[in-house]
C-alpha cells in the first residue's frame, strides 16, 4: 500500500512550483527542492520515508511545515464528530422507517418512504448540500451555512456537539452526509424485515403468544441486524475517510477537506499519511464489526464453536 501511494504520488506533477512565490529565482527554487528533500533519488526518498514511518513519523507537510500526522489528527476531531452524528442519524431514522415499511408494505406511507429513499440514493451529495444551504440558510435563515460552531469539552472530549451554537452548525452537514446512509439503512431494514417475517421462528414466536413488540423488537431485529451492521461498518469507514464533498461545501474543518486540498496542492506527505491512517482505520472498523457480530449472533462465536 505504501509503495503504491508513495510512488503513484511522486509521478504526478511537482509540488515545488506550487509552493514558491513567482518572484523566486532559480536559486530559490533549487533551495526549496533541497529543503524538501526532493533532489534525492526517489528510491532514497522512499527508504527515508519507511525509516521515519517505522518510528511513527510520516514526514512533514510541505505546506504547513509541521508533522503530517499531527496535522491530520488535529482535523480528525471535526470529522469524527460529523461522521458519528451522520451514523447516528442513519440508524435513528433509517431503522424505524425501514421496519415500518417492511411490516406494512402496502400502506401509502410505506410507499412514500421507499420512494423518498430512492431520491436519497440518487441525488448527488453536493447538489443536496447546496439546496439545503439555499433553503435552510438563505431562504429561511434557520441554520448557519458554513463552518464549525463553538466547541466545549465534556468528559475529556472536545466537540461542538456540546454547545447549541455548535449543534446548529452541525445539523446541515450531518444531515447532508447522512442522507445517503439513511436511504441505505431503510432499504436494508425493509428487505430484511419482509424476508424475516416469513420465517418459521417468527411464526413460532407469534404462536407462543408473544406481543408484536417483542417479536419485532427482539426476535426479528436481532436477526436482520447482521447485514445492516456489516454495511454500516463499511459505510462508516467511508463516512470518515471520504466526506470530502460535504466538508468542502460546508467549509467543515475536517480531514476530508484537508485531503482534497493536499491533493490539489500536491502536499504529498499529508496525502500519504492520510491514506496510511485510513487503511489502519478500515482494519479497526472491520475488527469491530466482527466483534459486534459475535454479540448479535452466538453462532459465530469461535470459542463456543470449539466446545
Amino acid at each position, binding site marked *: 500500500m505504501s509503495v503504491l501511494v508513495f510512488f503513484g504520488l511522486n509521478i*504526478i*506533477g*511537482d*509540488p515545488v*512550483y*506550487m*509552493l*514558491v*512565490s*513567482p*518572484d*523566486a*529565482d*532559480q*536559486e*530559490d*527554487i533549487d*533551495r*526549496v527542492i533541497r*529543503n*524538501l528533500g526532493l533532489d534525492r533519488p526517489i528510491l532514497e526518498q522512499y527508504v527515508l520515508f519507511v525509516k521515519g514511518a517505522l518510528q511513527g513519523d510520516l514526514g*512533514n507537510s510541505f*505546506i*504547513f*511545515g*509541521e508533522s503530517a500526522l499531527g496535522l491530520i489528527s*488535529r*482535523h480528525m476531531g*471535526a470529522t469524527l464528530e460529523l461522521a458519528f452524528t451522520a451514523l447516528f442519524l442513519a440508524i*435513528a*431514522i433509517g431503522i*424505524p*422507517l425501514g421496519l415500518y415499511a417492511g411490516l406494512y408494505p402496502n400502506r401509502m406511507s410505506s410507499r412514500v418512504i421507499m420512494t423518498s429513499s430512492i431520491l436519497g440514493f440518487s441525488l448527488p451529495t453536493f447538489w443536496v448540500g*447546496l439546496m439545503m*444551504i439555499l433553503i435552510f*440558510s*438563505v431562504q429561511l*435563515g*434557520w*441554520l*448557519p*451555512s*458554513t*463552518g*464549525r460552531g463553538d466547541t466545549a469539552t465534556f468528559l475529556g472530549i472536545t466537540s461542538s456537539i456540546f454547545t*447549541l*451554537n455548535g*449543534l*446548529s452548525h452541525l*445539523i446541515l452537514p450531518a444531515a447532508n452526509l447522512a442522507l445517503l446512509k439513511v436511504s441505505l439503512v431503510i432499504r436494508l431494514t425493509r428487505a430484511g424485515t419482509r424476508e424475516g417475517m416469513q420465517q418459521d421462528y417468527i411464526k413460532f414466536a407469534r404462536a407462543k403468544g408473544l406481543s408484536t413488540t417483542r417479536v419485532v423488537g427482539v426476535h426479528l431485529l436481532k436477526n436482520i441486524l447482521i447485514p445492516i451492521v456489516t454495511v454500516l461498518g463499511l459505510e462508516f469507514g467511508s463516512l470518515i475517510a471520504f466526506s470530502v464533498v460535504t466538508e*468542502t*461545501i*460546508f*467549509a467543515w*474543518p475536517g480531514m476530508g477537506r*484537508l485531503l482534497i*486540498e493536499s491533493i*490539489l*496542492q*500536491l502536499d504529498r506527505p499529508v496525502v500519504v499519511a492520510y491514506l496510511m491512517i485510513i487503511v489502519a482505520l478500515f482494519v479497526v472498523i472491520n475488527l469491530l464489526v466482527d466483534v459486534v457480530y459475535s454479540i448479535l449472533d452466538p453462532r459465530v462465536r469461535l470459542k463456543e464453536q470449539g466446545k
Partner: protein
Amino acid sequence: MPNVKLLTPLIAGIVTAATMATAQDLRLGMSSEATSLDPYFHNLGPNNAIARNIFDNLVLQNEVQSLTPGLAVSWAPINETTWEFKLREGVTFQDGSAFNADDVVCSFKRAPDVPNSPSSFGTYLKGKTVTKVDDFTVHFTTEGPYPTMVNDISTIAIVSNESGCDATTKDYNHGDAAIGTGPYSLVEYVPGDRIVMKRNDNYWGPKPRWETVTYKPIKSGPARVAALLAGDVDIISGVPTVDIAHLRENETITLSQGSSNRVIYLHLDQFREKSPFVKGNDGGEIKNPLIDQRVRLAISKMINREAIVERVMEGVATQAGQLLPEGFFGVSSKLEVMAYDPDGAKALLAEAGYPDGFKLTIHGPNDRYINDAKIAEVIAQMLSANGITTAVDTMPRSVYFKRASAGSPEGLPEFSLVLVGWGAGSGEASSPLKSLIRTYDKDRGFGASNRGRYSNPEVDALIDKALVTNDDAAREALLAKATEVAIGDVAIIPLHYQVNTWAARKGLKYIARSDEYTLADGVVPE
C-alpha cells in the same frame, strides 16, 4: 417518527439562540486560506494579507501598491549603496513592549531564514545588510546601487525582538509569538476554520474600524456566495464570475471591483529551432515559426481581446496591451491594446512564409486563474479560424507549472505556446520585466519565469540600467522604454488584466486592492 418530533424544538431553540452580529463585528468569507500566522513562513498572498492585520511593515503598500510610511516615517538613499530609514517613535507592540531598531534588525535576520519554509522571503533580501545606527535609524546596504530597495523592504513584516525573533513557526501558530504592532491583535487561530482578531486600541495609525474580525476560509465558490446571502459572513472575496450578474441585481448585496496587478498573457517558444508542439499542416516537423516576429505579431492580431473580456470573463477584466495596468510605476503611456485584425494577421503570416498556417498546441492551467481553461479554448478557436490549426491541452496547476517551466528532458520549458499570468508583487514594472522578459540567467536570478526564453540584448541593457538607476524619473523612463521594445518585439502577448470582485452585505463595501489582499480595514461603510 419520534425523531422528527425531537428535531423540531431543537431547531427552534437554536434559531432563537443564534446571535446576530453587531455592527462592530466583521466576518470575512475567504476564497483561500493562510497556511500559517508566521509572517515569514510562506510568501503567499493569503498569509501576507493576514499578517498585514497583525503586523506592520516599515513601508506599507496602499490599495494601488503605492508606498506609504509604516513603521518607518521616511527613507532616502544617502549614497550609491546605502538607504537610510528613519523609524516611527512611540510605537508599542501588542504585548506592550516598545518598538525600535533592534526589532527591525532581528526581523530582517529571521525573515529569510525560517526552517521548512516552502517559499522564503529571502528572495527580497539577497545581498542586503541591515545595521542599526541609533534606536530609530537603520541602514540597508547593498553592493551596488539598488533603487527598488523600498519595494523589497515593504514586503517584510516587523516582529518583536522580545517575543518574535527567536520563536518558531509553531509558536506563531499557537499565538504566543503572533504579536505585532498592527491594527488588530490575534484572539484565536483554528486552522481550517477561523482566525479571530480584536482591535488594537493602542494602534499608532487611524483607529482600526472593527471591534472583532473573523476570517473564515470557504473555498467552494457557491458555498461562499450562499454564506453571504445567508448572512453568515459580511463580505466574501473571489466572487465567482458566473455569480456576479445575479449578485449585482440583488439589492441586499454590494459589489466592489478593482483591477489587479495580474496580467494574463501568452508566452511563445522563441529559443528552439524545432518546437515540440509546432507541426506542419501534414503533421511533420517544421522550423519553429514562432521565432519570426511577424508570426508572433500575427497571432496577437488574431486574438479578439474584447470578445474574451466580454464573453469569457463576463465583462470582469480589462484588455491588456502591456505588462501592468496604467497607473503603476514604469508603465508605458505609448502602448495600446493590440487591435483585432484577422486580415492583417493573415497578410503577416503569408509574408513570413506560412500562407497556409501550421499546427500548434496551446497549453494552460485549469485551476489557477479566473476562467483559465475557457480562455485557452477561445484562443485556440480564434487561431484556428485564422489559419493556425490549434489544439488545446489544459491541466491542473500542480502538473502544469513544472512542465511549463522545466518540463523537457533537458530541464527546459516543455511547451510551445503557454497561457500564464503574472502578478507584480512589487507594484512596479521591473518585476515582470526581470522575470518574464529578461534573458534567462540562473546566476543572476533573471528570467525565472521566462517560459519562452525570449532574449533581446537591447531590452536586457535597458532593464539592467533601470535596475541600478536611483533617480525615479529616469528609472521609470527606462522601464517604460524596455516594455515598449519588448512588446513591439512581441516578447509576450498580453491578453487582459484580471479584475477582482468582492461582495459585501448592503451598507459595506471593500476598497479593492490591486495586490488581491483582503484586509479588515479595507471594509468600510458604503
